């Protein structure tokens, strides 16, 4: 094999996979945003089953760490990065819940619609608002997969939002610095080669 071409390049760079009952429309919206914002090839895959061992029976939530591990092992070679979309509630050992989760420089990002679709007071937001939030979380977590750190600029997608309110307030853009870091990373990985 020649070293200069990335074997992943022939396939899509990013795969968006809805799990169980997660909306395929949401998956498509996320895919559209990723390809629009990052200029990457993205495909939406058919729904898959949630790995059963990720369910914590006591908390009645799904363990994000377990999900990442399992999905990583299932999609080892067929794409560069995976965005896994859920309609169940996700948690980590320290947090009551997470909207999304990804490891720095990892392969798999999780996005959960669970807390975006209904508010704590029982009301539900309009669908386009939910989709917008899901897309922001997906871009944020994908940013982590591409080695971006949290950003101090509260208008940047990499700003950490712990609640839907702050999430709604962040802009729909990466700031100058994050954008530059992102390009450098993608060029390094051989995903893009345009020097813009």
């Amino acid at each position, binding site marked *: 094999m020649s070293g200069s071409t990335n074997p992943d390049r022939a396939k899509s760079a990013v795969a968006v996979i809805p799990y169980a009952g997660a909306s395929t429309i949401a998956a498509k919206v996320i895919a559209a945003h990723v390809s629009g914002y990052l200029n990457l090839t993205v495909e939406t895959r058919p729904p898959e089953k949630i790995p059963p061992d990720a369910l914590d029976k006591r908390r009645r939530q799904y363990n994000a*760490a377990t999900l990442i591990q399992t999905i990583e092992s299932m999609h080892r070679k067929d794409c560069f990065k995976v965005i896994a979309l859920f309609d169940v509630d996700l*948690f*980590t*050992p*320290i*947090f*009551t*819940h*997470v*909207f999304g989760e990804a*490891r*720095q420089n990892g392969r798999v990002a999780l996005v959960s619609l669970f807390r975006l679709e209904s508010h704590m007071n029982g009301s539900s937001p309009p669908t386009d608002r939910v989709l917008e939030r899901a897309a922001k979380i997906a871009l944020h977590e994908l940013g*982590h997969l591409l080695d971006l*750190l*949290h950003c101090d600029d509260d208008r940047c997608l990499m700003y*950490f*939002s*712990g*609640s839907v309110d*702050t999430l709604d307030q962040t802009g729909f853009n990466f700031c100058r610095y994050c954008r530059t870091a992102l390009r450098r990373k993608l060029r390094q990985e051989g995903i893009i080669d345009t020097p813009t």
Partner: protein
Amino acid sequence: MDIMIVDDERIIRESFFHWFQKSGHKVATAASGKEALEKLAETPFDLLFVDIKMPGMDGIELLAAVKAAYPETLVIIITAYGSIESAVQAMRIGATDYLLKPFKPDQLSLVMEKVVQQQKRQSEYNYLKGRLEKITRFDNIIGQSPAMTAIFELITEVAGADASVLLAGETGTGKELIAKAIHAKSPRANLPFIAINCGAIPDTLLESELFGHQKGAYTGAIQERRGFFEVVNGGTLFLDEVGEISQKMQVDLLRVLEEKKITRVGSRQPVAVNFRLITATSRDLEAQIRAGDFREDFYYRIHVIQIDIPPLRKRREDIRLLAAHFLKKFCHETTKRVDRISPLASRVLETYDWPGNVRELENAIERAVVLSKSRLLNDSDFAFLRPPPVTATPGTSLREMEKYHIRRILDRHEWNVTRAAKALEINRVTLHKKIKRYQLKPAGGKIGSR
């Protein structure tokens, strides 16, 4: 930020680790209080997350140990629901905040915000404290000149050592003040500080003052009396104007320093003594040694460490600060309301040569405050610092008048020769010639260049 997670549960440590990694923090982990303390001993940490319930050393014990040894390290306590009591206790002994596990993501960001704020306050505080206390103030010694700043550092360094210190400087430069500061910072601080001005006491009296005497040792010695060597009792003995001591006395003192024993006048029974010696001189002791007035062996004994205090005219940047300090002091003492020194008066103070150094400045401010009728000290309030002006009496020569007038105009124009020449309506070359002929010099030693 350097963060350490201390928790006996691996998945908790990993969770924290991954989260902080995403914010670019450096994260270390420890599975026990013991391991945490070992890591702290190796590298400093800004922030610790500590689980309250751990086998062995628990979170509260670790918190107390960290706060005692590394007070600048901030600690966040992690606790499960139901142990609020211990969280409250943790806050009392210095935890920055606590988190009930599991917590909402934005609770952690709030805690981190609080940590950043506290760090900022801490560093601002340290910065200000450092500036105020180290640079312009050292106990009650005022000064911001490089020379004084270096002396502040020396005082701290020297205080801990028990060696003899010789303070060299003109009278009024603050030698006694510095001697007291060395004593106050030394392990002998709680014991007496005794100052003796050797120049002011006749030799025989000095002997009995220092050594004490037995009843009837000489006529007038009606009672037994302990000398300062005994009275000082482990404290610090300050001998001012040590250059004035007679050769015989120098020999006696040298023996005391070597043997740490004294014998009272009129007694044969030696008594053990313990003290630290600080001496001061306004004379050049080395010149005195060359002239045969001062013993070299005694000199080597007392100047193990020497601190030179420059005269005030060599550190003019301290004058304004000292003047403000004395102004405040005397207003407080006299309950007079004088708050300010006019710019013109400041200039007078800053250009005057201060032969009596800080003591003279202190006296000048006191005099001005006492006599002042307004809230502002003007240059006229310090008129006494200048030699009385030459007034044109029938006996004054023209030459004298010209010299005086030229000096006055030069002073007024801060020795800017061009401007002074213009005011005198003569050209610069002529003015330079006259300056040379009358041997005029600016008070501060500087001549304006423009």
